[in-house]
């Protein structure tokens, strides 16, 4: 089982891709730990995590079909 994560904006400079996969984890704290191990530069990058199109507050459970996205600070307009 893997989770698919969509990466936006300047974070793609770190991941090298706008879609990455990592071995399944059960919540966002585990997800962040795994991502920071794989991409150490994420440790200092500013971003929030969206699960099913909502920005999460605190640790959040993940399912196999959750839409997961990493969003750096917005800069539209």
């Amino acid at each position, binding site marked *: 089982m893997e989770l698919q994560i*969509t990466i*936006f*904006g*300047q974070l793609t*400079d770190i991941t090298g891709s706008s879609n990455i996969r990592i071995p399944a984890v059960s919540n966002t704290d585990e997800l962040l730990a795994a991502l920071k191990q794989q991409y150490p530069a994420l440790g200092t990058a500013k971003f929030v995590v*969206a699960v099913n*199109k909502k920005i999460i507050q605190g640790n959040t459970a993940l399912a196999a079909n959750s839409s997961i*996205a990493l*969003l*750096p*600070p*917005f*800069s*539209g*307009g």
Partner: protein
Amino acid sequence: MENLQAVDMKERKPKQIFVQGAISPAFIADSIQKHSTRHDIGGHSIFLGQVRADTIEEKPVAAIEYTTYEEMALEKMLEIREAIFSKYDLTCMHVYHSLGKVAAGEICLFVFTSSKHRRMAIDACTELVEKIKFELPVWGKELFEDESYQWKENK
């Protein structure tokens, strides 16, 4: 227009706000023209974002390339739309944001509010612009002429 929007709000159906490339002055003129049939409107407030050729380390920005998390952005825009309509007595509200490349000097954001009285239109437009800048998942990449780039930051 009011009826369509009332229906939209009831169905909570997100409305497309993204357009590919720059927003043309002719498109803006069309949008203004369409409101001439609404005889209850007394004032329109419009904000236009234009791509600025800031000079960063002696290189001017040639264009900004915009990307978005579209599904999330359209849901967020629906929330913003509902909040603004419930706070201000508006006749209409329209928002258009560019995706892809927009050259320096071109328009990348068009926010348009109309009301019976000017203050409502102006205050709603001002608040909308702030919400769009800080709450919509959209990213701008400032492209220099030598093909290097820098990610835009909003203040």
